[in-house]
């Protein structure tokens, strides 16, 4: 069985930052492996260690800069990686779900995996739609927000547990090939071992252009444009009193009365 894991390098932001136009100024940005993808990689690697999967392949849409993040996934145990980039993507401001779907769909067509694991969402853009939309396009079965997966995958069925609102959980059987979007907490992602990091340097990392995949350049021009970015005004404050309950209880009472919470 082959598993394909989508891996994204996301932007991280410092606590204090400034916005320039429709973006956060560069000096406040860092980069990291998308948290949800870390769990998806771990799940795939565990499936491989348990003898269920034969091969774990990662796919990333991103420039050369993000190879460090891809190597991180390889160091944790993925077998090989595909990175898709193209001059046509260089100028795209906002890569929307449709564009990602068009690209990933072709990678999947070429790789023909039995199982595709994506993160529920990415920590920076938070579209939260790539996995499901991809399944729809491919006509694969899918399950979103998966927080447990049975590791036998007998008879081509993935038995999954999904997280619903309000702490309710749902058990579902999904027929393979399928796309599962993985929720944090499904497992405990490992740190890359020193040996893993060493081996990762030698694992294949294949770079493909839109042309290689047969994706038309127009597919990446999304329908969505970013029009503004701002920090919302805070609507509430926090008040902290230091001291014992005796000293501070009456102050709290007064505040609650002031705010109209207590009569």
């Amino acid at each position, binding site marked *: 069985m082959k598993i394909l894991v989508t891996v994204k390098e996301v932007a991280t932001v410092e606590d204090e930052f400034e916005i320039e136009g429709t973006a956060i100024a560069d000096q406040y940005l860092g980069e990291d492996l998308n948290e949800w993808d870390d769990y998806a990689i771990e799940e795939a690697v565990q499936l491989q260690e348990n003898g269920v999967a034969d091969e774990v392949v990662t796919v990333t849409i991103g420039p050369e800069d993000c190879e460090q993040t891809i190597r991180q996934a390889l*160091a944790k145990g993925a077998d090989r990686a595909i990175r898709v980039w193209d001059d046509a993507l260089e100028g795209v401001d906002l890569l929307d779900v449709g564009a990602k779907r068009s690209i990933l769909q072709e990678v999947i067509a070429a790789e023909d995996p039995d199982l595709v694991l994506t993160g529920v969402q990415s920590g920076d853009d938070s579209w939260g739609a790539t996995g499901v939309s991809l399944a729809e396009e491919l006509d694969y079965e899918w399950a979103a927000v998966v927080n447990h997966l049975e590791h036998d995958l007998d008879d081509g069925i993935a038995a999954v547990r999904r997280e619903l609102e309000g702490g309710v959980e749902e058990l579902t059987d999904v027929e393979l090939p399928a796309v599962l979007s993985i929720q944090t907490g499904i497992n405990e992602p490992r*740190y890359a*071992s*020193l*040996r893993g*990091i*060493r081996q990762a*340097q030698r694992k294949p990392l294949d770079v493909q252009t839109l042309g290689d995949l047969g994706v038309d350049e127009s597919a990446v021009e999304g329908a969505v444009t970013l029009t503004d970015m701002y920090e919302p005004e805070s609507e509430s404050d926090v008040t902290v009193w230091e001291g014992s309950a005796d000293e501070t209880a009456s102050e709290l009472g007064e505040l609650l009365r002031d705010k109209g919470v207590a009569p």
Partner: protein
Amino acid sequence: MEFGLTEEQQQIREEVQRFAENEIVPQATAFDEEETFPHDIVDQAAEMGLVGSSIPIEYGGAGYSTLDTVIIAEELFSYDPGIALSILACSFGTEAIMEFGTEGQKERFLEPVAAGEKISGAAISEPDTGSDVSSVSTKAEKDGDEWVVNGNKMWITNGTVGDFFVVLCKTNPDAEGRYNGFSQIVVESDRDGFEADKITGKMGIRASDTAELIFDDVRVPEENLIGTRDAAFMQQMQFFDATRAGVAAQGVGIAKGALRNALEYAQDREQFGQSISEFQAIQHKLAEMATETEAARNLTYKAAWNVEQGNDVTKLASMAKEHASRTAVEVANEALQIHGGAGYVNDFPVERFYRDAKITQIYEGTTEIQKNVIARELLGKGF
């Protein structure tokens, strides 16, 4: 000339940072206060391969070079020196086995250390033997096919948590010349007559275990002798280049950690209506701390790189060790000063860095001994 790290080295650095931030930092104060060995963190670190990372791959290690291990030490020490030492010292003493051990000894002793199943130690110092290693009086006498070890070792890292120790013993009291007649013998802690008394009340690196070892007619098989009988003094000295580069890296790490904490505090703390980082006096402190740290780092990397190339770096390794340990102490001192009163209590890590820094000027050859070595090399005197 090439000053950059490889992609792999950068990757190691980042993964160690992640590990330290998530697993070490939240527990650092507790282990310092309680003065206990962080077994769980060490186990996790072993899983990641941070324990015994220089042990060759065929014995389960990562086969990392001196420069790689210097990078790891720098990162770990920049988050918490006590826990960092607990992790990295798990393979103390194994250098001798790697270099001089037989195939059988390597399998017996290196594999369990690399797997995180056993902890080793190096026992050289004694109550009356510190800087003058040639005054070692712990003796081992041959009796049939066994060595019988008697004596005391002092200040031994991992003393009460270690499974075995590479012990420098006098095996030929009649040998001529003060550097002859010593052997390195492995003593396991479960042998009859072995005792370890934990030393408490240390000023710093309190998570790391330190003990006095007492050998009372401890019998070990003759296969436990490492390398050449009676020639261990030279065997021991051979590793000082690498291990001193390692302690230099600890100093760089401590300076880096103290600077990181000072930078953060200086930007947060406001006095006279502005952040204290706006005052030139504070800015100059930060600038000097960063510059000294970078200088120590370059000296350390250069020493490590030369060890890796197989060059003779005795002078350079001592320079790196002396300079980096002094930098650690000075930078930690200034970092505390920047914290003002808040730096004088353990609400902030800087108080710990200040206490932890000092050890780097003492172990693995004191500052004075490093200067003796440097001067001896400069003046072309043998030792």
